[in-house]
């Protein structure tokens, strides 16, 4: 997977723990120690998993699809670990693979929905874990309304803007990292990010009712 010059020209930063781990796993796979590599990979999965599901869920808005995309991405990463370049942050490489997995799944989902009989609209809502203390019914209603507004606003962003916004703001990646992950120049990433924030502000900015 070639990366753009935008990312390659960035100043070399010290490798993160995840990048070191990925390099170590690559070494084990190359050396034929696949079982040991797999064990180490479990650690890497655990470290990246939460971030990965947040990105995938934000992108796909469906628990099962997000689950599948994340699994696909992790499996792909391990099977292609020998092509990982140790001079680049692992998070960037992984994010790129994950975003591609999400895109693939989104495409296949739209194909599937074209032929599917519509089911209950509430069927695929994620189960919400109750948190203590329980808010009042009114608070819950207001909170749910606001959550729906925010979700709808983010959904209304064009795909590229949504991806950039998600990676920068939800996955907390820098614009340089996002430019590497998406194969865009950093200036383009910034433009998409600005547009996304401007649109979100237009749609959402008001003092929340409390």
């Amino acid at each position, binding site marked *: 997977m070639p990366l753009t010059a935008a990312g390659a020209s960035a100043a070399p930063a010290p490798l993160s723990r995840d990048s070191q781990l990925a390099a170590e796993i690559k070494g084990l796979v190359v050396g034929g120690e*696949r079982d040991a590599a*797999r064990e180490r*990979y*479990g650690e890497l*999965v*655990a470290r990246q*998993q*939460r971030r990965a*599901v*947040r990105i995938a*869920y*934000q992108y796909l808005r469906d*628990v099962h699809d*997000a*689950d599948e995309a*994340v*699994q696909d991405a*992790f*499996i792909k990463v*391990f*099977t292609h670990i020998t092509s990982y370049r140790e001079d680049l942050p692992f998070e960037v490489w992984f994010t790129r693979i994950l975003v591609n997995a999400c895109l693939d799944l989104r495409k296949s989902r739209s194909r599937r929905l074209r032929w599917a009989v519509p089911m209950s609209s509430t069927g695929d809502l*994620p*189960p*919400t*874990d109750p948190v203590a203390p329980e808010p009042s019914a009114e608070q819950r209603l207001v909170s749910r309304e*606001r*959550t729906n507004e*925010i*979700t709808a*606003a*983010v959904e209304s962003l064009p795909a590229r803007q949504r991806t950039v916004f*998600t990676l*920068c*703001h*939800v996955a907390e990646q820098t*614009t340089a990292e996002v430019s590497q992950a998406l194969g865009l120049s950093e200036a383009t990433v*910034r433009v998409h*990010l*600005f547009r996304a*924030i*401007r649109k*979100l*502000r237009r749609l*959402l*900015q008001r003092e*929340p009712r409390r």
Partner: protein
Amino acid sequence: MKASHLSDDRLIELCVLDEASATEHQHLAACARCDARRVRLQRLLDEVSDTATAAADAAFTTDRLTRQQARILAHLQHEGRPARVIAFPAGRAPHEPVVSRTRPGSRWIAAAAVAGLVVGAIAGRFGHDYSFGRPGAARVIVARTVEQPELRANGSTATVREVTASISDDELLNQLEIAIDGPAAAALQPIDDLTPRAWEIR
């Protein structure tokens, strides 16, 4: 210091990308309007990311993540190994001779079903040939017109036909034509118009 207000784009940069310069810090400290704009934007962005994070975290509980990790590792365990050859028919080793594993009882049932099918097919082929070689004399149920006294009493012209004997195909068709031309059939015309013809529905 009379600094101009911060632009919207600069406020976005300050919220998501850059640190404010010393001059900007001074301006934000002095200008309540710009500071309020920055705080509102920052709060909005935090709200959006908190909402996204909370939704994902609610959907993916720790337990679910553990199961997901187990599935990934289980999948990888089979990665790179030669594919397992599944014997077909199922359960037979590749070099095991083919022997029938069906029980005698089920073989009898299968044989009886086949015999029944054959008998049914033969009976179906010859069962309707009642004429025994007399063309145009198929046995049909035919009716003789009789007038019912109670219908006459009501002033009705309808008649009731009584089944009597066998007639030829020609006689049957003649009688059908007479019946179709009769006044009682006219009442059925609208239904006939609604009924599609065989050639129309092909």
